[in-house]
């Protein structure tokens, strides 16, 4: 089942994917999700991942202060990175002229990653995480 479009546009949904051997968490930030995201499987993942204990050190991307400022709260991204996910956020644009084309632009940037080559490895949950196709989103 898919999330309704208006729900996607009004919510900041945690979703997950695999791509080129890495496991990613992404915050949708009110953007449209790729077709591969199934709402039922995604909710199972959200629920089960809440209980996973983070065991990896967290490495923030160099530009997070420029994007979120000193007081931006990045704990949600850090939490998933500590569990072995490369954590992404959907990129926002400042210009008003881009506001009406946001649906067409699904660009994400890395906020936090697991250190020590950490990688989420729960095989049962990994089976629920879909594989991203090239071109579904752009990772900057």
């Amino acid at each position, binding site marked *: 089942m898919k999330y*309704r479009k*208006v*729900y996607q*546009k*009004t*919510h*900041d*949904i*945690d979703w997950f994917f695999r791509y080129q051997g890495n496991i990613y968490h992404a*915050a949708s*930030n*009110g953007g449209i999700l790729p077709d591969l995201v199934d709402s039922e499987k995604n*909710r199972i993942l*959200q*629920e089960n991942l*809440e*209980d996973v204990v983070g065991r990896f050190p967290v490495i923030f991307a160099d530009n997070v202060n420029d994007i*979120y*400022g000193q*007081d*931006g*709260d*990045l704990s*949600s991204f850090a939490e998933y990175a500590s569990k072995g996910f490369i954590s992404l*956020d959907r990129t*926002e644009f400042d210009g*008003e002229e881009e*506001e*009406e*084309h*946001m*649906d067409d632009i699904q660009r994400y940037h890395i906020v936090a990653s697991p250190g020590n080559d950490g990688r989420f490895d729960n095989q049962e949950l990994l089976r629920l995480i879909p594989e991203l196709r090239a071109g579904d989103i752009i990772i900057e």
Partner: protein
Amino acid sequence: MATKKELERCVTNAIKVVRHRVKQSRQAHPQVKHKIKDYPAIIVACSYRSSKKVFWGQSESPVNHIYEDRLRKRLEGLAPIGTKRPGCDNTIGSCAEPHAADLVLKKAPRCNLNKLQFSRAYRPRTAKHKRYCRNCKDTFHEVL
């Protein structure tokens, strides 16, 4: 009268409430029927200038939501509720601002729309403030 500071305080508390709800929904006991929640994209606080009461609203679907009459007319002046119009990517009536204003107007029926005041709009996940969208600026053109 709620000051700007009180509006900001209300929305800061609302961010905590929203985060707690999301976490709680994901930690609920599996045997108990519960719904997994997602963060709303945006929340904002709103009050009426002569009142101390502050309400907060979040971005959500306008489908099946009955807006207070004057607010509904304002929104419909842009385009039918639940549709989009050129110049803004958001669906009419889906933003946190009309949802928060609706709570104020339903509690204070004599309140004028030009006497509303809003906090800044925030993304609860990061507590970072965001600019108001074109739909909201046009709906609440006297105050945003």
